[in-house]
């Protein structure tokens, strides 16, 4: 019973969008993460109760997808290791992050570090994400500076454009339409579920 009444109400709002309760399992898992800062056993039990699944079934879904985190530091640094980034020095960026933070990929200290597959910024490789906000054209030195900043300043939240300006290099699609409010903003025709913790 870890969810407060607001979270429960939000869960019900999400569930009614689906023909079956259990179909809401994935957005509810995000909700559980938002409620506890990471995915806890208690959170999964809540999701199970709301969807009519067993906790084992919820656990099965949650552990299949890498974006449901059972361990999470204050920030999540994801370094791309797929082919484009790899060719343009992504490995060195990852090494710099590990060295600067002392945290190995997949591990959590004050922050969480992970190596991920293509984050869709191949044109701006090597790419890094902080809390799923994108920074492109990152050099090893910039990656170090980024990590230092995260560890020293402990910012409450990060904004992609800001990160890009401070720690990024060459961007992929400068000619693309500017996204006014970052990746967390509303995408047309797709209402946010408000599961990212910030309230959308």
């Amino acid at each position: 019973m870890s969810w407060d009444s607001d979270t429960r109400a939000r869960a019900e709002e999400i569930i009614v969008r689906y023909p079956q309760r259990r179909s809401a399992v994935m957005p509810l898992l995000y909700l559980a993460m938002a409620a506890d800062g990471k995915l806890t056993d208690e959170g999964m039990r809540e999701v199970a109760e709301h969807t009519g699944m067993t906790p084992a079934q919820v656990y099965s879904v949650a552990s299949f997808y890498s974006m449901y985190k059972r361990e999470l530091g204050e920030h999540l640094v994801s370094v791309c290791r797929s082919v484009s980034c790899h060719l343009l020095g992504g490995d060195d960026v990852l090494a710099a992050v590990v060295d600067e933070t002392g945290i190995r990929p997949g591990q959590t200290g004050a922050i969480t570090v992970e190596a991920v597959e293509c984050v869709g910024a191949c044109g701006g490789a090597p790419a890094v994400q902080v809390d799923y906000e994108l920074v492109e054209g990152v050099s090893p030195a910039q990656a170090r500076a980024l990590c230092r900043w995260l560890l020293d300043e402990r910012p409450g939240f990060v904004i992609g454009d800001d990160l890009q300006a401070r720690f990024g290099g060459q961007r992929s699609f400068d000619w693309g339409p500017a996204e006014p409010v970052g990746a967390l903003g509303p995408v047309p025709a797709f209402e946010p579920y408000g599961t990212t913790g910030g309230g959308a």
Partner: protein
Amino acid sequence: MSETVSITIDGRTVAVPAGQLLIKAAEDAGTYIPRFCWHSRMKPVGMCRMCLIEVEGPRGTLLTTSCTMPVTEGMVVHTKSEVVRKAQEGVLEFLLINHPLDCPVCDRGGECPLQDQTLAHGPGESRFVEEKRHFPKPIPINDLVLLDRERCILCARCTRFSEEISGDPLIEFVDRGNHTQVNTFPDEPFASYFSGNTVQICPVGALTATPYRFRARPWDLEAVESTCAGCAVGCRVSVQAAQNEVVRLLGVDVGATNQGWLCDKGRFGFEYLRAPGRLSTPLVRGEDGELREATWGEALDRAASGLAAVLSEHGPAAIAGIGGARSTNEEAYAFGKLLRSVIGTGSLDARVGDGLDAALAVGGTGRIDDLERAKTILVWAPDLKEELPVLHLRVRRAATELGATLIVVHPRRTGLDPDADHVVHYRPGDGFSVLDRLRAGADDLAPVAAALAAGPVVAIVGRTGLTEPPDLASAVAEFAASLPGAAVLPVTRRGNLYGALDMGLAPTLLPGRASAEDEAARAALADAWGSPVPAPGRDADGILQGLADGSVKALVLLGADPAADHPDRASAEAAVAAAGFVVSFDLFLNDSNRGADVVLPVEGFSEVEGTMTNLEGRVQKVNRIVPGPGLSRPAVEALDDLAARLGRSLGGGADAMAKEIALAAPAYAGITWEALDWGRGRDGMIATLAGGAAAPAPAVFQRSVAPAEGMALHLARVLYDEGTMTLAGPAFAPLIKAAMLHLHSDDATRLGLAEGSTAVLTGSRGSTELAWTRDDSLAPGTAYLPFGLGVSVGAAVSVTVAPGDGSGER
């Protein structure tokens, strides 16, 4: 259904049922396609890729999984082509990338599909030299089953079983890619009554069960087919023994009954056979009042002289017999013959106050397999999951897979509720009014009544609990019989109660379900036996009463423990203690025979040959594979020796009794041991009713009602109770939960019971303190107490707060 298509398998054209899966069609046509994940009783998933074959199509020949491919007219299939061979080699090479080669220490080694199919279809060598993945060696996923994730080939048989068949999906695949593993939720074990089935169907040694683990190598096992005696479903089993000890039971797939599955109690409940308390020598009461060991001769002499003394002083009516519900038909028959013909008493009963009316129990018209065709199923009976577990699986299958409408009527939630279309919960005692309103199609029950109008209807009828009077079940059965296309299955739990009743172990029944009230029937039996057959005497309740008031002096028990089994424990105990002379044939000392004058150790399950009759009247063979311990003997022989000492032999051993049964009980004619041991008879034979006898007795039912004051008590069994099977074997010890009182939240509030406090349950036979829990599936004003966990307070119940439990003062 009967439509066929013709397909060509490896150049041979065969006719197979249209729409059938290729893997099954090929197997039935004589071509075995290797497989891991496909199981004939579960839906296909196509996960392991072992069943790849080639199918010719318009765009050329295609490698495809035969377990997901339905046959179509003209299909041309190759199962042994070069491409198929390469595919099979590839699949096995991949499966062995991570599978540890620890066959020498693996329980499955020697009977492992992975071993066997690698031998038959594997590449012989692997190109992979990398380190295999590692997991901590076996982790318990519940108290009985261990999981070795390194050995798992991720076929999903176990996880699919838990979801599709048993309906408790508490094991699942977790993590992804190379890390994928089967596991439970952290701290939430695979608490299933059916977990042992996953061990049996796992195609590798990933799942093992503690009772069998490391106890034998498969090639050293001896096996015999038999029938589980754990409850009245009568699941078909293969009993396997090593060095004269039963080490495991496997389910045998009989379509009409268990379809391959067993419950954990039946599967793992053999350990009691070798439990430390098992009797291995006859006991007689010495002059010092203590039981002491004796020879068979001495013990039988004592039993005979004690009974003879009562006979000569008080006549045969002063002797009575209880038991037989856990025995074979042959033993039950011999017991009945000893009592009726040799001793001359008509007081005998296999029920111990927990059964159905005898006429109802033997008057069923349904078969378990009727569930396959049912449109509507009415379950107004014990919680099948707790009492007749594999029947629960069959009903579940009908409701979830076959689309039947399921109606459950019970005083509280049952294991079937999650799969039911209509659930009616009622306060114990209100059963008759529910039935009346159902008959009348009352508003709230109108949808239920409407569903019942769609036949064929299968009605599973029994007493929902031990406090419920048997007359309600009889009334429900009568109502159910009037439903369209009705098949009524009267159910009660104990192993061979139906067989015992068929053998005449009720005062009103003679062997073959003839009425004992019928003089002609008695005369016919008297002719066959060459001795008079007494008129009906007392039933179990009457016998206990007679013992208490002194009109019954001597009691003969055959594998019965009325003191523990009777719902009114205290008076049953007192009655048995009051008996002047008690002879008990049993495997253990128990509450009823600890005070006996003579205790004779008899052989039990897997130690004797004979037959048993399940709840649908199916007679099946039970077989011997191990000897009983020490001096224990087959009960039939011991009964015969006692009879001989009383003046007249019963006429031989179990095989002789079997032949006699066929004569004395026309319903059993043709059901011989030979017929049951071979061919189709192995699946059992239905004993058809003799001359239209014993339909549910249309009687004027005594309409019991709930007490106006106090709480109504619902007393019902749970699977893991403190019975012989569960207590004596170590496997179940951790599964027996302490008795807890269940109350509706409203009552808890009204009574001022605080969370975690102790309640006092007071009944006519005393009162007891115990923990309580909320159960809002109960009607307010009802207390539910699991039976057989050592708590017994009699009828008429009230609940109060435990003194000194200040948490709940009000």
